[in-house]
């Protein structure tokens, strides 16, 4: 067994035994991510907080049945997903049709390509697409970039926002996210694709100066 798995078994045992310090450390470890994910389901921060609270209660109640088939993190986030969708009526088992349609943003980018009938450069980029320079951390540009991203994330359709938050911000795997959100791999990829394109576009406006 990996040392990580051993640590987890120990942690679960301590939690079951009512070890408050172990619980607090876990809350501090997972909590910020959980709040960020809950925020994708519920834009109201109070509701998001309540979702996180309910999740922890469900975690405690479910501790007896946790069998380490998945990692602790996956298990906790699964519970979070269930609480969140119950709370916000955003169905975990189906993706809203509108989010799979072509959004306005994607149509705009078509202007960056020559038409399919161009005599020499059919369907080629019209723009250069420069490599972005690395931004020194804490620089003005880095902060501007972060602001642009945070803003854009709020404006994405909820299912796109959910996928990109879980995959790219939280680092969950493709399998975990499909399971959490009740998506096929194909649907998940489409949502991730559109979300990343939108964020890239937002970054371009900041970084291409």
């Amino acid at each position, binding site marked *: 067994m990996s040392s990580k798995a051993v640590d987890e078994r120990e942690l679960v045992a301590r939690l079951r035994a009512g070890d408050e310090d172990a619980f607090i450390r876990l809350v501090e470890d997972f909590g910020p991510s959980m*709040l960020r994910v809950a925020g994708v389901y519920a834009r109201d921060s109070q509701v998001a907080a309540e979702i996180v609270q309910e999740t922890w209660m469900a975690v405690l109640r479910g501790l007896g049945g946790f069998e380490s088939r998945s990692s602790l993190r996956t298990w906790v986030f699964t519970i979070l997903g269930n609480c969140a969708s119950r709370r916000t009526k955003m169905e975990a088992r189906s993706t809203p049709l509108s989010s799979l349609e072509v959004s306005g943003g994607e149509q705009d980018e078509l202007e960056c*390509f020559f038409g399919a009938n161009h005599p020499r450069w059919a369907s080629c980029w019209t723009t250069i697409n420069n*490599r972005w320079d690395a931004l020194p951390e804490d620089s003005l540009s880095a902060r501007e970039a*972060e602001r642009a991203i945070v803003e854009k994330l709020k404006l994405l359709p909820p299912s796109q926002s959910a996928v990109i938050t879980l995959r790219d911000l939280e680092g969950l795997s493709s399998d975990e996210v499909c399971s959490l959100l009740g998506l096929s791999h194909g649907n998940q990829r489409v949502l991730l694709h559109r979300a*990343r394109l939108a964020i890239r576009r937002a970054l371009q406006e900041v970084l291409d100066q």
Partner: protein
Amino acid sequence: MFTCRQIYDLVTEYDEGSLETGERRQFEQHVVICPPCRGFLSQMRDTRDRLGQYSPPEFPAELEDSIVNAFRTWKKEQQ
């Protein structure tokens, strides 16, 4: 050989590893010979990497307190 538009459409599938070998080969062959697509691929990856660097905002103290209180209640109920 793919067009730039196809690279734009397929980039996430490429990075997710869901293209078949033949499509993957065509994708790479196009990107090598197309400067704007090189730039685009690089930008998409930078976007993903950048997102991975953002820590979530701080956890509110009141929320942590109320969760800990709930834990204590739960613990009492266990005994």
